[in-house]
């Protein structure tokens, strides 16, 4: 594997892209270290695909700069960049067979010994023996692997993947996620992966950038972002969070004090994005425990009382909705580990959590509780997103 070094980092600085009056990407800056698996995560229309297309050279930034190492590639044409793309729904050449599809880039660059390279690449994606087939004669998963081989064979400095698994069914998608990760580790090329699927981004990428409205909301390792989201959008786009509207009243003894609905909660200061004014107190559903009464709450935990209004059994866990005294329904995911008996709808419970699992986010004045996840709709084909 290549050692990460600054020489091959992909750098976008203050990149803006406008389509007429619409700003698709808004003053975006980010650095993708060489050899890393980087995911751009966001709902459709957030500007992630436009960002990718600017790196590929298929779109030119209105302002800003794209650099690869110390080379400015902002205005280079797509065929002049050491960057290749795996397109959404693959864009395989229907009039060429698998061999010629994969060999396309080599032939354009007048590289000899095409045969051995193509065969090695097809072996890497486990498609040996398919050389004479046309794309229309392959399954979705096979087409996906041809698209990958066609891009990878050129040894680009950066490989761009635009929703590469979007057209596959769930089972194949999981399989290809593992496959992609394996190939990335094997070839050591920088992968920039655009997706709306948060699970896909988390399982594959070293670094995830969550985008919304043309800006990056948060950038970091998947666990970092999940455990300590930066904004309410991220908290409910990456997984689900219970966000309670409250007021922070400054720090005391290393804790930020939050009052919400006549109750006081303390959150460790390193887990607070704000310590004064309007805030959200956030807890992930799986971090909540349910007990019958206040007496059973473990020492040091904080709690809220409520009534179970809904319970759905999903195999690994049971997902409850707990209606609090002020009417908000909290989501609680209880693992089906056999340790606790399932709770009936209508029972009075106390939901509790450890202060280390809570987090405090900035809140716009007047915003109420938020407990439902942001809908992640797949991008419509052909729509610039």
């Amino acid at each position, binding site marked *: 594997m290549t050692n990460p070094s600054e020489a091959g980092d992909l750098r976008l600085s203050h990149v803006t892209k406008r389509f007429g009056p619409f700003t698709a990407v808004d003053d975006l800056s980010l650095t993708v270290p060489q050899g890393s698996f980087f995911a751009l995560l966001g709902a459709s229309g957030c500007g992630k695909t436009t960002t990718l297309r600017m790196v*590929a050279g298929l779109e030119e930034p209105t302002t800003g700069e794209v650099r690869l190492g110390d080379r400015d590639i902002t205005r280079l044409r797509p065929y002049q960049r050491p960057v290749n793309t795996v397109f959404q729904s693959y*864009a395989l*050449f*229907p*009039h060429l067979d698998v061999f010629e599809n994969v060999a*396309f880039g080599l032939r*354009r660059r007048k590289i000899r010994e095409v045969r051995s390279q193509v065969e090695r690449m097809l072996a890497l994606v486990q498609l040996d023996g398919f050389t004479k087939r046309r794309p*229309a004669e392959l399954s979705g998963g096979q087409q996906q692997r041809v698209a990958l081989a066609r*891009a990878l064979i050129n040894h680009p400095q950066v490989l761009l993947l635009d929703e590469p698994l979007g057209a596959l069914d769930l089972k194949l998608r999981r399989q290809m996620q593992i496959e992609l990760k394996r190939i990335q580790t094997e070839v050591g090329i920088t992968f920039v992966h655009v997706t709306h699927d948060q699970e896909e981004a988390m399982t594959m990428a070293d670094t995830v950038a969550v985008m919304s409205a043309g800006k990056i909301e948060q950038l970091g390792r998947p666990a970092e972002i999940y455990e300590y989201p930066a904004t309410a959008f991220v908290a409910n786009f990456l997984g689900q969070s219970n966000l309670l509207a409250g007021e922070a009243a400054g720090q005391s003894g290393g804790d930020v004090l939050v009052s919400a609905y006549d109750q006081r909660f303390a959150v460790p200061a390193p887990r607070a994005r704000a310590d004064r004014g309007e805030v959200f107190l956030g807890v992930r559903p799986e971090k909540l425990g349910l007990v019958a009464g206040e007496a059973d709450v473990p020492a040091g935990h904080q709690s809220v009382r409520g009534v179970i209004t809904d319970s759905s059994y999903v195999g690994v866990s049971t997902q409850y909705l707990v209606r609090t005294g002020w009417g908000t329904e909290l989501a609680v995911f209880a693992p089906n580990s056999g340790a606790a008996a399932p709770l009936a709808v209508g029972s009075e419970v106390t939901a509790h959590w450890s202060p280390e699992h809570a987090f405090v986010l900035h809140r716009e004045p007047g915003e109420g509780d938020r407990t439902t996840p942001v809908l992640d709709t797949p991008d419509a084909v052909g729509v610039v997103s």
Partner: protein
Amino acid sequence: MHRIRRWVADHWVLAIGLMVLLYLFLPIAVVAGLSFNRPSSRLSYDFNEFTTENWTNLCGPADLCAAVGRSAWIGLLATVAATMLGTLMAFALARHRFRGRAATNLLIFLPMATPELVMGTSLLALFTSAGLQLGFVTILIAHIMFCVSFVVVTVKARLAGMDARLEEAAMDLYATPAQTFRRVTLPLVLPGIVAAALLAFSLSFDDFIITNFNSGNTVTFPMYVWGANQRGIPPQVNVVGTAMFAVALLLVLATNVRGRRRGARVA
């Protein structure tokens, strides 16, 4: 009784379909049959006696072969010119946004919608006022003109069905714009261009009305048939018709077989 009604119910769509096919192909069958006929008199179209003489002595009637050759030449030249112009126009209309694009799209339809009679007379007026000698050249200009529209429409339809991302993918894979056109765009649009060219040729080859106004003393094949009709059509005309049909049929069959071979490999 019930069984008969059931049989009729099951087969009436098929029966109507067969009748429509019969309606379409009967005239062609008659032409093919008459091409092997030795007519009893000049003005007789009854089947008299089987002979292959019409096929072997194709150029027997005076001027027939010259007229066919002239029409073929005009058709060929008009096809090449119209296909080139029309393909370029189709690319411009399908791929670029420019002022007047919507108007061009509309105007392209006009030659197809204009009655041939109107087009023929207006072209005649144009040519005479421009002082052009009517003949081969004026026929050619007229044919190119009305063929272009059909080419544009056909090629544009093919282009519209092509995924623009294929060209992006080619550029992403180090193909310059010229290479992208040569290696990806052209091979994918070619079937549309070929279809347009065949259409243009057949339109030009059998055009009578417009040609009649603008031909001067030049006699094309349709005009020869028209002229011969006054004194009895020689049976060789049927041979030309049958041969044309056979060529078209062979072309269709060839593409069909190619498509089926490709399809068979999928299985």
